[in-house]
């Protein structure tokens, strides 16, 4: 009896999470203008989507910012994590606490504060400001991911390397980096997805010269959800699945080695 209740409960939770997504994907193939009734299978919304230059342009911009922001944030965030883990310096405690605060503070606060900052230094809003903003909010997530893995290690491993004659640089390159690589990769993927679907911060810090996908979609759905948006969402969904799957595969291979 309890097992049936448990199974039902779990099914319900998953249904709640995934049915809307499923509906969205199904309606991307609906041969109808309005999304409420099913009129038969069609790929016309995908065709229409690929004919929409501005939407595609925004998508390319989004991916570009995502890749760049993830890469920069991963580099900076990883080094920060290693520094916090490895060295005792003034303000270390403050820094590691600040990292956690940054992840829970409301996006709107970060958006506005960055906007104020960019205005203060008279930076024109556009690609650069957007990239800087994305790098900023991705760093703490990378740092926390990497720090989590570092804390799981036997502290004597680094000492053993020192004992065997490794310099600081060699310790980083040959011991720490290879051991945290899965976390670094996970941090990159996390940053990429965060950057790709950010609306709130981006809304404040980008200008009309540089359009990105989430903002574009946001603008489009104000006039009603078009089936094109469904099609786009379906593509993004498949893309996300691929990334998550790749990440899982990578982690698994590492563990088996």
């Amino acid at each position: 009896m309890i097992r049936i209740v448990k199974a039902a409960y779990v099914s319900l939770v998953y249904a709640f999470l995934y049915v809307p997504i499923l509906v969205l994907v199904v309606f991307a193939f609906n041969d109808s203008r309005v999304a409420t009734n099913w009129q038969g299978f069609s790929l016309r919304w995908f065709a229409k989507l690929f004919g929409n230059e501005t939407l595609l342009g925004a998508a390319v911009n989004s991916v570009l910012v995502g890749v760049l922001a993830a890469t920069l944030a991963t580099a900076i965030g990883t080094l920060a994590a290693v520094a916090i883990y490895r060295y005792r310096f003034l303000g270390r405690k403050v820094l590691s606490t600040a990292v956690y605060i940054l992840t829970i503070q409301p996006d709107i606060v970060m958006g506005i504060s960055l906007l104020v900052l960019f205005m203060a230094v008279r930076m024109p809003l556009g690609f650069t400001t957007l990239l800087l903003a994305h790098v900023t909010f991705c760093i703490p997530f990378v740092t926390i991911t990497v720090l989590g893995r570092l804390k799981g290690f036997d502290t004597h491993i680094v000492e053993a390397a020192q004992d065997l004659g490794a310099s600081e640089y060699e310790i980083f390159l040959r011991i720490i980096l290879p051991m945290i690589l899965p976390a670094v990769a996970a941090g990159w993927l996390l940053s990429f997805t965060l950057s790709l679907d950010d609306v709130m911060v981006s809304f404040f810090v980008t200008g009309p010269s540089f359009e990105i996908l989430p903002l574009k979609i946001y603008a489009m759905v104000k006039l009603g959800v078009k089936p094109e948006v469904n099609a786009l969402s379906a593509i993004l969904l498949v893309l996300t699945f691929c990334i998550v799957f790749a990440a899982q595969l990578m982690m698994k291979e590492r563990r088996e080695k």
Partner: protein
Amino acid sequence: MTGREPIIDIRNVSMRFDDTLVLDDISLSIANGEFLTFLGPSGCGKTTLLRLLAGFESPTSGDIFINGQRMNDVPPHRREVNTVFQSYALFPHMTVFENVAFGLRRKKLPASEIKGRVAEMLALVKLEGLGGRRPAQLSGGQQQRVALARAVVNRPLVLLLDEPLSALDFKLRTQMQMELKHLQRRLGITFVFVTHDQAEAFAMSDRVAVMSSGHITQRGTPQEIYENPQNLFVASFVGEINILDAVITGHAPDHLEATIEGRRGALHSRRDYPDGQRVKVLLRPEDLRLSRPEDPEAAEACFSGVIKECTYKGATVDIQVEIEGGKALQATEFFNEDSEDIDYRPGEPVRVSWVRGWETVLPDD
């Protein structure tokens, strides 16, 4: 140990963490080629002392000399010592070969030499053919050998070992103790070993330094320490021992007269004690002799008592005797072919004596 110059010289070293004094004025010389063990209970500062030698910490005061050079502020990677960690601390992402080669590669030796030395080392610790495995694919004992090989392959002046065998089961541990000792003899490298296991320390070491709360309380060969403990701490830490209360009552030409646990008796001591001095008499279980009241040797026995319990241990029997006055003594008797009379029953009356001169007398403080 005479005639060999010290490879390590620890001079008045103290170590303080925040407010606690962890090492208090330690001085010790370790001879080249010696197998020295720091033996002491948990928290007495053994690991801290080893970390000072390795260079992971530097002493609050005092000096450490290795091979004649002052080492206080020399970082670990510039010291010709290597450490075997208790947790092994193998590099999980490297193969066994890469682990062992790590130190040699840091020295930028030619690849062919590295290959030869690693192979030789793996053969020495009986790990041939496992060079391609990762640490996670090895048993505990094999990981232990990799840790050992990884340190020894660098041919350090001194090898530091911090309880390297404590994670192994009893049988493997005793086997590894013998292997370590043979390895040390064969390589001639100075080994500084740390353990809280008295049997382990005695089985391997040339010399043992017994530590207690930041001090070295006694140093000497295992035999010296076992037979002549200099204080109660050492006596009771290294093996089972019976401690009797006594008061000196007079002096005879070759012994001291005393009242021991309320009975008159004779004590033999290297040190002289004044009349009236309260002392402790220490006797190892194997030094006690039990006899039945009707036996001839019972006449010169000091105590009479009652058998409480007998525990058979194969070649020996552990016997608990309660002597007059209520004190329980632990005695160990060895089986030998022509005397089966150690077959005591609980409740049986016995006489207790000991081999003259085998007692240790310490002041009672």
